[in-house]
């Protein structure tokens, strides 16, 4: 995979292969959690609207994997060598990302369009957070998340600042409708209520930036501890 300067961390073929291996397993975990949520909603006899997102996730995610594997000619192939396993894991990893994106976007839509089922949001949250946490922790531990070099670290941090600012702004926009009912019920908008959204934006942005840079720095350290730098290697050889 060609390195893109716009990316915040390096992703090379070795890292991609290793992380695809994990993501492919998490695809099954995430799909299973979504399926369990669907069963729970069916048992609770909720309206079809309440489990539309689960259906979309399972059909789109599963359909993507199925069609991709058939197109690549590896569907239900029993004897997969290292190369075919790599392709298979790559497809499942993409399926995992697709399902996760659907869950994230769908969760937001669900939150605003079906307020009567808000308590069920925790299910969606759990379905993507659990695999995402596992993936993040393992990625840091294995050093898959890293800047790659000093130059990339500078570029990456600059890029991250811009992205976090956009993300914080989007988060603020999403937060305004959620605060509106409270303000309308009050009848009066206080100074603190006007301040709360920009404060949330700044807090979210700063926290995310610190958290992400620390995570990448830690990943970099882990990667360097696994593969000594040249100067360290020379001192070992001496």
């Amino acid at each position, binding site marked *: 995979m060609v390195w893109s300067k716009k990316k915040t961390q*390096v992703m*090379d*073929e070795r890292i991609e292969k290793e992380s695809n291996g994990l993501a492919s397993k998490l695809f099954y975990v995430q799909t299973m959690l979504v399926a369990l949520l669907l069963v729970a909603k069916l048992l609770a006899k909720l309206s079809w609207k309440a489990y539309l997102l689960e259906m979309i996730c399972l059909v789109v995610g599963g359909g993507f994997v199925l069609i991709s594997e058939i197109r690549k000619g590896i569907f239900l192939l029993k004897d997969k060598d290292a190369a075919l396993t790599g392709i298979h894991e790559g497809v499942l990893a993409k399926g995992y990302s697709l399902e996760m994106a659907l869950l994230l976007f769908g969760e937001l839509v669900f939150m605003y369009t079906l307020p009567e089922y808000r308590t069920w949001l925790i299910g969606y949250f759990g379905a993507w957070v659990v695999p995402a946490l596992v993936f993040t922790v393992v990625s840091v531990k294995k050093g898959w998340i890293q800047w*790659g*070099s000093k130059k990339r670290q500078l570029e990456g941090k600059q890029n991250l600042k811009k992205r976090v600012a956009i993300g914080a702004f989007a988060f603020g926009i999403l937060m305004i409708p959620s605060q509106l009912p409270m303000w309308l019920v009050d009848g009066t908008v206080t100074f603190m209520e006007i301040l709360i959204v920009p404060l949330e934006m700044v807090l979210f942005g700063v926290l995310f930036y610190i958290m992400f840079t620390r995570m990448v720095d830690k990943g970099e350290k882990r*990667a*360097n501890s696994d*593969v000594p730098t040249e100067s360290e*290697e020379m001192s070992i050889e001496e």
Partner: protein
Amino acid sequence: MKNKRMKIARVECELTQEQLAEKVGVARQTIGLIEAGNYNPSISLCIDICKALNKTLDELFWPVE
């Protein structure tokens, strides 16, 4: 098996692992792992490394008996 030929070629080009990694678009650790013989790169990465170090595939990656 360690790939000393690649390491020598890189040093001859006056490149550090980090600089070579930058040129071919991978992490510094991947170059370190290839040189240490702990990672088998794909053919496309081998070609990129050869181009960056002005060598042929045979010169860098063909096993010498």
